[in-house]
C-alpha cells in the first residue's frame, strides 16, 4: 500500500509543474500572429525579416516618428481608450496599419471618424489565385512608393473595403481582379446577385500628421503567406526603416500562450542582475546543504547501529534478541 503524504504530493506537483513549465516553453504556441509561432499562421518569418516589438499600445506609447503600429486580426472587442491611444499616435505622425477581414475594425474606423469600412464578407477570385479561390492574387496595385517593386500581393480569405464616393484623404492602394466576387451567401461559388470586382482591398488614409493603412485581410504577413507574391516587399515598403510594433492588446490568446509568456517573463525576471547572482548563490548553498545531509550514513541494520554505538556489547546477544522479537511479531 503506497504511502501518501502532503510533503510527497507537494514535491510531486512541484516537479510536475517544472516539467510543465519546461514543456510549455519548448512547445511553440499556435496562436495566430504570435511571433514565436513557427507554423503557417505564426509570425516567426515576420520577426526574422524586420525589427519588431510586441507591446500593448494602450500601456506603452511608441515613438510615432520611428515606428509603425500594426493592428492585426483583432479578436477582442476594442475599447475606446485604446482607439484614443491610436488616434494620438497617428496625429503625432505615426503610421497605423489595420488588417482585418471580419469587420471588427469598423468600430475603430467609426471612432476615428474615417468613412472607409471593411465589408466582412469573403472575397473570392476564381481566376487569379494561389491554389484555391480563397487565396486571391492582387495584381492591380497603385500604391506609389508603398508598392514599389511589388508585382502582386497574395491574400488569404480577404474581405473588401467599402469606400464611399468623395471620401477625402483616401488613396486606394490595391484592387482585386475584375473576376473576383463577394461571396454573400457563403457557398464559395459565384451566385446570381453577388457583385463582381474589381474591389478595393487596401487603402491609405491621411489622418492628422500621420496615416492609416487599411487592408481587408489580416493574413498578409503570416508565415504561410508572407513569402508569396510581393508580400514581404510590401511589408518592407510600409516600414521604410521604421520599427514594427504589434499591438498585443487586441488578441484573444490561448492559455498555453499566456502560461508560456508568464514563464518567459519569470525567466527574464530572474535574469535580472539582482536576482541572477543571488539565485546562483542560493542554488550553491542548497546544493551544499543537500550534500551535507547526504553525507550522513544511513542506518539500515539495527544490530550494526547498536554495535557501532556500543562496541563493547555482545553482537550475538543482540542478534538473538532481534530474532526473538521477530518471532513474536
Amino acid at each position, binding site marked *: 500500500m503506497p504511502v501518501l503524504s502532503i510533503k510527497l504530493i507537494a514535491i510531486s506537483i512541484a516537479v510536475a509543474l517544472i516539467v*510543465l513549465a519546461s514543456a510549455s516553453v519548448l512547445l511553440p504556441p499556435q496562436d495566430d500572429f504570435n511571433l514565436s509561432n513557427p507554423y503557417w499562421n505564426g509570425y516567426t518569418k515576420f520577426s526574422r525579416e524586420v525589427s519588431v516589438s510586441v507591446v500593448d499600445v494602450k500601456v506603452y506609447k511608441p515613438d510615432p516618428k*520611428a515606428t509603425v503600429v500594426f493592428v492585426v486580426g483583432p479578436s477582442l472587442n476594442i475599447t475606446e481608450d485604446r482607439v484614443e491611444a491610436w488616434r494620438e499616435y497617428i496625429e*503625432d505622425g505615426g503610421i497605423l496599419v489595420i488588417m482585418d477581414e471580419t469587420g471588427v475594425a469598423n468600430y475603430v474606423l467609426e471612432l476615428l471618424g474615417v468613412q472607409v469600412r471593411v465589408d466582412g464578407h469573403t472575397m473570392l477570385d476564381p481566376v487569379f489565385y494561389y491554389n484555391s479561390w480563397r487565396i486571391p492574387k492582387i495584381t492591380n496595385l497603385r500604391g506609389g512608393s508603398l508598392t514599389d517593386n511589388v508585382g502582386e500581393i497574395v491574400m488569404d480569405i480577404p474581405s473588401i473595403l467599402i469606400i464611399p464616393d468623395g471620401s477625402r484623404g483616401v488613396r486606394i492602394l490595391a484592387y482585386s481582379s475584375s473576376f473576383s466576387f463577394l461571396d454573400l451567401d457563403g457557398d464559395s461559388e459565384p451566385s446570381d446577385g453577388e457583385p463582381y470586382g474589381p474591389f478595393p482591398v487596401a487603402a491609405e488614409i491621411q489622418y492628422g500628421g500621420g496615416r492609416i493603412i487599411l487592408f481587408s485581410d489580416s493574413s498578409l504577413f503570416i508565415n504561410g503567406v508572407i513569402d508569396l507574391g510581393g508580400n514581404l516587399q510590401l511589408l518592407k515598403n510600409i516600414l521604410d526603416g521604421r520599427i514594427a510594433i504589434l499591438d498585443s492588446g487586441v488578441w484573444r490568446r*490561448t*492559455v*498555453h500562450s499566456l502560461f508560456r509568456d508568464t514563464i518567459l517573463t519569470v525567466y527574464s525576471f530572474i535574469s535580472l542582475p539582482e536576482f541572477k547572482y543571488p539565485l546562483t548563490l542560493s542554488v550553491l548553498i542548497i546544493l551544499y546543504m543537500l550534500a551535507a545531509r547526504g553525507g550522513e550514513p544511513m542506518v539500515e541494520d539495527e544490530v550494526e547501529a547498536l554495535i557501532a554505538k556500543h562496541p563493547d556489547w555482545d553482537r550475538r546477544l543482540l542478534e538473538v534478541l532481534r530474532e526473538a522479537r521477530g518471532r513474536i511479531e
Partner: protein
Amino acid sequence: MRVERNSKFTAVALIVVLAVAFSFLILYLMYPPAMPKLIHVDPDTEVSRLPLPKLLILLVLNPFTTMLKGNFSGVPAELSILESAYIPSGLRFIVDRFTKLMNSIASHLDRADNLMDEAEALIDSGRGMEAKPILIEASREIALANATYKELRLASEELARTFNLPRGNIYVKLNDLGCLIDGMYLRLLELLDMIERQKILIETSISIDIYPKTIWIGGRISVEGRLNTVFGKPLPGRAITILIDGSRILEVSTLWDGSFRVEVNLPYIYKHTIAVQARYTPTGDDAVKYKPSTSDPVEVSLLYIEPKVIVEPIGWILPGREFTLRGSVYSPSSLPYSSVKVSWINSVYHVKLQEDGFFEARLNTPGDIPDGEYILRVNTPASGVFAPVGASLIVTVRRIPVNVTLNLPSLAIAGLSVFTSGSFKAGDERLNATVKIFFAGREYNVESDGEFAIWLNLPLTLLSGYQTCSMRITPIDPWFSEVAIEERILVVNPLTVLASVGILVALAVKVSGGKAIKTYTEVIAAEISREEASGIAEAYFAPEEFRWLMDIYWEAVGIVGDLTGVMMKPYMTMREYLAAVASSSYGRIHRYLETITSAAERALYSPEVSAWTIMMAMMAIKSLRSEYARVKH
C-alpha cells in the same frame, strides 16, 4: 525499508502521472479558440482547384481579339494576363505551349505587317524595286505564321479540353485568325503587283535652288526649281510640295517649262540649319504615267540671338522662408521682353527685368519639403530673332542644425522620479520647439524656448537594467532641423533588490543554523538536541505504537539532566544513566526517571507494555515536568 521503497515508487509514479496529465493539458490548451469567422487557411494545404471556365475563356480569347484588331504588339501583354491566372503546375505546360505559339504568330505577323508598310512607302515614292526584297522577307514571315497557326489549332484544342473551356468561342477566333493571315497574303500580292505596274512608269526628276542660304530667322527665302522627266521633258501644271525639315510648308504649281518659284516665310525654328526639299507626287492620270520624285535637300543657315542668363541665389535657402534670387539676361541688343519665368518647387514666378537685363526676385520655399537638392529654372521667352534660353541651377535646401544637450542622471531608482533637463540652440540662435520624451512607455511633452526641465516618473514595475530614453525636438519654425537623440539610464528597482537580498540572507541563516550560536545555554541546548537526535534514531527500534513512550523518555532525560547536572553521554545505556542519576542526591527525581526508564525498556525490548506501566510513566513525566517548572521558576 519496504515502506521507504513504496514511498519512492509512489513519488516517481505521482510525478510521472502529473507530468503526463499536465502535458496533455498543454496540448489541449495550445489550440486557439475557434473564431466566429474563418480568417485564414494554410495555403499549402488547400486543395488545388481549376479556374472557373466561363471566366478563364475570356483570358484565352482576349489575345485573339487583340491580334485580330491588328495590334500584334499588344498580344504578349494579354498573354501575360492569362499566364498570371492560376494554372496547376502539372498543367502549366499546356498553357505555356499555347502562349508560346500565340506569341510566335503575333511576332511573325507584326514583322510581316511592318515590312509591308515599309515596302508600301517605298512603292509610293516610286522605289518599287527597292521594296521587292522587303516583300520577300514579309512573305517568309507570313509563311511561318501560317505554319505556327496550324500548331496553334491543336494547342487550343488541348487547352479547351483540359480546362473545360467552351470550344465554339475558340474555334470562331481561330477561323478569324486564319482569315487574317489570308488577308495579309492578299495584301502582299497586291503590293507585288504594284511593283510590277511601276516598272512601266516614267521616272521624274526635281531640282531646287534657294536664295539666300543664310538668313535671319523668320525671314523670307526664295525657292526656285524645275520638274521634268528623266528624258528632259518639262512637266507643267504639276503641284510641288515644299518641305522644311520633312514638314509640309506650302504647295506651288509648275509653269509651262516645268519651273516653279515661290517665296517662303521661314517659321521661327531656333535651329542653326534647316533642310528644304521639294516633292512631286503624281495624282490622277499622272499616277499611272509618272513616278513620284523628291529633290535633294538644300541646307539653309539661320541667324538668331541667344541671350545669356546668369542666376545666383543669395544666402542660405531654408524651408518655410523666402530667399533672394538675383540674375541678369545678357544680349547684344536690347531685349524685346520685360520679364523672365522662374520655376521653383511647384511654383512659377514671372520676374520683371530691368532695362539692363538685371532681375531680382523673392522666392518662397515650402516648409514641408525634406532637405535635399532641388532644381531652380529661369527661362526667357522666344521673341522674334531672340531665341528662348534657360538656365538651371541645382540649389541645396538644408535646415539649420540644432544642437541639443540632455542631462540625464546615470542611475535612477524605480518608484521615484528623475529630474531631467536640457537645452537646445541653433548656433547662437534660440528657438521655440516641442520637446517630446519617450521613457518607460510614457510620453512627456513640453513647449520650450531653448531650455527645458522634466520630471520623469519611474514606475515600480520597471525592472532593473538600462532603460532607453528617447527625445525628439520638433522646432516650431520649419527652417530648423528636427532632432532625435537616445540615451540610457541605469534603473535599479529596490523591491527586486530587497527581495533577492532577503532570500539570500534567509538561506544564509538557515545554513549557519546552530553553529553560529555561542551562549552557554544554547550550547547545552544544542548538545541535548544532538543527543535527542540519536534518541530519535533509536526510537525506531521500538514498535511504532510505543514510539511516543521513547519520546517521553528522552524528554525525561533532558529534564533530569537539566535539574541534576548529570548529562547522558553518548556511550551510556539507559541503566547506566539511571545509575549515574541515582548517585546524585535527587532521590525523587531518580524514582521518576526509573519509572519512565522501565516503561521505555519494555517498549524497546518487549512486544507488550502493560497499561499500568504506561500510566505510571505518564504520571512520572507529569511529576518531572512540574518539578522542573517549580525549580525553574
